[in-house]
């Protein structure tokens, strides 16, 4: 999936994956897609909940080894 920007939050513990994602998202335009890479297990549920509460769309998520990948479209 094509992304306009990528946030690498690998190795970072909660709350940093969301802090970084949120910061990047602020600089993006509605409809653009952000890819997030994280290794923190808690990021899965938290990114989904965060996207929902912020009006964004979690388009897809994948697991590759111990890396979680998410694609979120800005709302």
């Amino acid at each position, binding site marked *: 999936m094509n992304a306009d920007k990528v946030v690498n939050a690998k190795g970072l*513990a*909660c*709350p940093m994956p*969301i802090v970084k994602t*949120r910061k990047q998202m602020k600089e993006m335009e509605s409809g653009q897609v952000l890819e997030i890479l994280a290794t923190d297990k808690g990021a899965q*549920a*938290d990114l989904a*909940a*965060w996207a929902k*509460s912020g009006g964004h769309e979690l388009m897809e998520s994948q697991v590759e080894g111990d890396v979680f990948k998410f694609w979120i479209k800005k709302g």
Partner: protein
Amino acid sequence: MTVKAMIASEVAKKVVNNQPLFILDVRNGDAFADWKIEGGNIQYLNIPYFDLLDGVEEVVSELPTDRDILVVCAKEGSSVMVAEMLSEEGVHAAYLEGGMKAWSEHLEPVKVGELSNGGELYQFVRLGKGCLSYMVISEGEAAVIDATRMATIFLDFAQEKGATIKYVFDTHLHADHISGGRAIAEATGASYYLPPKDAEGVVFEYAALENGLEVEIGSLKLEIEALYSPGHTIGSTSFIVDQKYLMTGDILFIDSIGRPDLAGLAEDWVGDLRESLYSRYQKLADELIVLPAHFMIIEELNRDGSVAKKLSDLFKENHGLNIADEQEFRDLVTENLPPQPNAYQDIRKTNMGQITPDKEIQREMEIGPNRCAVR
């Protein structure tokens, strides 16, 4: 500005002593709804940390000034951040060290009673998950029953008491938490007993826990006797300790009874469960004190933090023991069952030795509430 940590044992003391506490839980809403720190005098507010990144000013007005405030998250990081933000607003709040993970692993040892010849019986209350484990100590020897994954806590406790662990028992093959029985047996050379009917898939050597088995602890021969009582699992076995205590495993709880479906065999096992509760237990002495392997709600704790009640009281008060109609009983334990525990199949495989997940994964497998009873 640094903020204060509160450790799990301090929170446990507040829960047991029914002291006031305000918990600001900053996990996501689903996680909070699924599982939280329970206590009779705890007030809650759940706002996910990601909704507080712009500031906590709006939360401050919702916080009490007359009780301790504890910020809680899954592992710790976000609760430290939020506690620091509160501190900048002039609110003193502590964070839970190690988060809900630490809470899930904390065991509170409570002495439930004196046994004959100077023996002692301890209950290890896992407040975060509702699991109860036991250690019987007499004359420098000990037996451990239904130990949880945190084996070192039991090993250290026995050492503190100057006791050698001789016997390790599990009342059944657990599906809701990972047993520490095997690890304790390996560390001490003790025999690890499992009911053979539950242990068909077990890949390591174990001793057979059969009906009528009797072992003696210490030179003054404190007696532990096994009583086959199937129904939660086909192998479920109870223990009578010193003719005084009845360890019921997951067959009978204080305010509920076991559920028979963990291995998908509710219909087959419901008859066994009925017989264990309505026939086998009925024949036992009324004054036995019931010690279950779980509690479900915080109201089941006694004032001293223990979970224990006379069998005769349970026959009077426990709804599950007072259903005269067999069909009604059958319906209760086979219909409207609560959801299965998280990762229960992997937990069973781990307890059988078929898989050995690393420690971090074992922790994750156990996260969440316990759900093995029906009320």
